[in-house]
């Protein structure tokens, strides 16, 4: 081994031994090219790079085919119209809790970026989960450019994770629920686009929920004998009309690569189950803010985010619908925990993020942003529980995120959150703070 190394170094040195420079001369003698030969020492020393290149041959072949046969353009042409205002996309989800999923998406948006849209989505998983939705929007020129939208959706989730409600969730006991949902929602923006900083939207919805024992083998199935309290309306089909209003302030300098500005979003919703004798209904209020502060020299930002949420029953004896309760966990709040890890009537949450833009693509203003974040929050049945520090057990998480952003929009992000309970990886696309 040592001999081989000495030999390799010797062969490299052999090739590098002769320092040469230039000289001006005017003679015209002929010099034959040296015979082509294999630089053995260098080949040996470069072998790891060679193996890596061989490993990437499939990538080269793919890239070559895409380039040579314009495959990307052809695929784009198959799935979009000529103006690219319409797209049909097959969806394949290779991995997930519910097994592989397959589906399709039809999207129409003209002009691009306007509220005029129609999106039809359908996905089915091999375990029997499915979701289908139709979402349409329209700008109303006769109403000073306000926008109206209507969406209809239905889904079946047979293995929804459930950790209990209230303080029981501290036990981190995970069960599986099945939830069947139907949603119909209409909304209208209340302010014309000529008021860019303020936003207001009213909505009217009908939601049907049926929550039952789940299916699957990953965790215990929730039933009435489980050691935690079940969600309101368990084993019942409940019908909820819903009225909502959302008011906001948005002073961001851009929706992508935001470096300064402030966002405040307040949302209130009311609902009551229509079934005779049902005692499920209430209101939910959430208020959330985001603040971006630029750091010098540039391309670095501090982002603060915080929010509070409260869910209130109309009458003391009423239950609050499960989907109206405040929850922490998932891709936005306490990112080191799974969805609905903490669920209760009251909640607060906050994040501190340090973001830095470290790669720009060809001067386009778009590129990659890295993020370090720290999240902390709490849920509870009353205010005292929310801020009780004696136990010292505020749920928290830290993590890293990689965001792909353009100067106008945020395209997607990959997040890795770490909490005392484990690691959560989430991937998301679209406009998020």
């Amino acid at each position, binding site marked *: 081994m040592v001999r081989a190394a000495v030999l390799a170094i010797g062969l490299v040195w052999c090739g590098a031994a002769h320092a040469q420079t230039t000289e001006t001369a005017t003679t015209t003698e002929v010099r034959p090219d040296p*015979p082509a030969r294999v630089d053995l020492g260098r080949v040996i020393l470069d072998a790891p790079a060679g193996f890596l290149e061989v490993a990437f041959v499939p990538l080269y072949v793919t890239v070559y085919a895409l380039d040579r046969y314009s495959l990307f353009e052809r695929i784009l042409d198959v799935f979009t119209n000529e103006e690219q205002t319409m797209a049909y996309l097959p969806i394949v989800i290779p991995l997930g809790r519910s097994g592989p999923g397959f589906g399709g998406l039809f999207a129409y948006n003209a002009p691009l970026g306007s509220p005029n849209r129609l999106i039809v989505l359908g996905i089915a998983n091999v375990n029997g989960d499915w979701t289908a939705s139709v979402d349409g929007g329209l700008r109303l020129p006769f109403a000073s450019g306000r926008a109206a939208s209507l969406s209809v959706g239905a889904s079946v989730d047979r293995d929804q994770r459930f950790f209990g409600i209230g303080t029981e969730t501290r036990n981190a006991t995970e069960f599986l629920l099945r939830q069947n949902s139907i949603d119909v929602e209409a909304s209208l923006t209340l302010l014309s686009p000529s008021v860019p900083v303020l936003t207001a939207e009213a909505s009217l919805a009908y939601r049907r929920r049926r929550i039952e024992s789940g299916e699957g083998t990953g965790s215990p199935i929730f039933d009435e004998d489980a050691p935690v309290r079940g969600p309101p309306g368990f084993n019942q089909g409940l019908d909820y009309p819903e009225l909502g209003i959302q008011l906001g302030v948005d002073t961001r300098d851009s929706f992508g690569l935001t470096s300064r500005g402030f966002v405040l979003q307040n949302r209130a919703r009311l609902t009551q189950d229509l079934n005779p004798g049902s005692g499920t209904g209430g209101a939910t209020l959430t208020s959330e803010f985001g603040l971006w502060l630029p750091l010098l020299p540039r391309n670095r930002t501090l982002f603060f985010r915080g929010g509070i949420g409260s869910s209130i029953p109309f009458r003391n004896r009423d239950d609050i619908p499960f989907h109206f309760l405040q929850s922490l966990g998932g891709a936005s709040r306490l990112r080191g925990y799974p969805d609905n890890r903490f669920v209760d009537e009251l909640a607060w949450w906050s994040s501190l993020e340090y973001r830095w833009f470290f790669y720009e693509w060809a001067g386009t203003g778009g590129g990659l942003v890295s993020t370090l974040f720290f999240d902390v929050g709490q849920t509870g049945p009353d205010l005292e529980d929310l801020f009780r520090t004696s136990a010292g057990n505020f749920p928290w998480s830290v993590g890293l995120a990689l965001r792909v952003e353009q100067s106008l929009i945020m395209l997607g992000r990959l997040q890795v959150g770490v909490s005392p309970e484990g690691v959560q990886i989430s991937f998301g696309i679209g406009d998020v703070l």
Partner: protein
Amino acid sequence: MRAGFFVLLLFGACAGPSWRKSPHDVPFQRTPPPVLHEAFETRPSSEAVEVARHSAVRPLGGLVSPGAYAERAGARRRALDVNEFGQVTDSSWFTNRVSRRPWSAEELRQGPNTIDGPAEGPLRILGGKIEGVAPGFVVEDQLGRRFVVKLDHPAYPGLGSGAEVVATKILHALGYNVPENYVVTFDLERLFLSEDASTAGKYGRRVPLDRKLLDDILSNANPFPDGTVRALFSRIIEGEVLGSFEFEGFRREDPNDRIPHERRRSLRALRMFYAWLNNTDARSSNTLDVFIPSDAEGQLGSVRHYLLDFGDALGSAGTEPKYIAEGYEGLVDLEFMAYGLFSLGAYYRYWLPVQRSPFRSVGTFEAQVFDPAWWRPAIPNPAFQELAPQDAYWAAVLMARFSPDLVAAAVDAAGYDTNARAWVLRVLLERQFKLIRWGFGERLPLEDRRMDEVAVRWTDLAVELGLVDPGAQAYTCQLLTQKGGSEIQTHDRPLCELAPLHDQIMETRDPFMRLEVRRRDLTRAHVLHLRRTPAGLLPVAVRR
């Protein structure tokens, strides 16, 4: 024991100067006439693969390869297309021009051009590309000469065409094969469509180029009030096109292509010249191999290697000005990405103060922030990455041959307005100065050797260019033979007097000896190897 002996033998063999083993002790100046062969198939290439390979896979490979670390530590492979004086010999790749004799401004302005541009009269459009805001066509003039015509972006008149012309003139004078490029202001009325004109349509298919498509193109041409437009006419190179050449390896079909391209000094040193011209698009797709027939039947011939498409030179990015990071960071620059990522954004990009020039015809072209060591093309070029100090020195000497008048002649050929011309010229001269200083490094730049019976004299380019103070310099010279060293001579100019050395030269049994010249402020010596012959002393090699 045997292995140790073998290793010692190997090192000993390698340590011997190659010029002592060569059949001639004279400075070779050109390669032999090429072996004639038939044309071969065009090699397919893909820009996308080039980007993936050189921007992502190769840098990752460099992290895990001892060879890459050895190279960074100085174990660079020497160039193979050079003689014992470090000169690149004339070949189908490179022809010594400004390095062989001083050029006049008029010669440089003429450059590779053999005609005065397209003939007067109608220009028949044979085909072209229609996509993009600055499309191109292929036209034929009345004398049957064909040109690729590139229109400038309507918002940046003169930007792309000016960059092409300046780069063409300078690269040609340096010694490279480049196409004939002409800036022409012509009336659009001269254009007419050939019946069988075609263009690249969707998915690269050929589609007929009709009047409507042509009108679409010309509607974006932004003509002057008199109906004329400024365009670059690039004359189509005669011969059979064989595709582009790679900047590494060699083409096995070509019997004359025997030196790996990354070991050609002419290609390695192109990094210096492209840094001077800020030509960031150094992909292999901007090169061309052309088969030139040389027999009467046109069957046998050889390949000539061209550099093409300098629309990304100076401050131009083809059709628009460069973005400010171009030339300072690669398109997918893993090194800078890692600095930015792992410093948590604290790493300050040194190029951030770069600003676009005030001239639309110039774009983003500056010399203040420019650092020769950090310049890089958009996509890593394997030959550029092999640039060794000896290659950089050779390039610096070539660049030193360009007086301000010669550089001005190249800029004048582009037809800039007065202020833009002054900007481009100033920046080119400042970049040239920085590159020469960097290329010389710690080497003593003694050139233009004059040798007679009395003395050997050189010109110190560093003094001539004002890089060092001429009055404060002192040079020493010593003859080293088999018998030992002579007395050290001290002069205020680079000079070795031979008369005091006569006895020592004649007494030594070994006919090979060397003169070591040093300048006080440098540790490295300029070493001239000599051979004693009946006719006198013959220079056989130079080492620095």
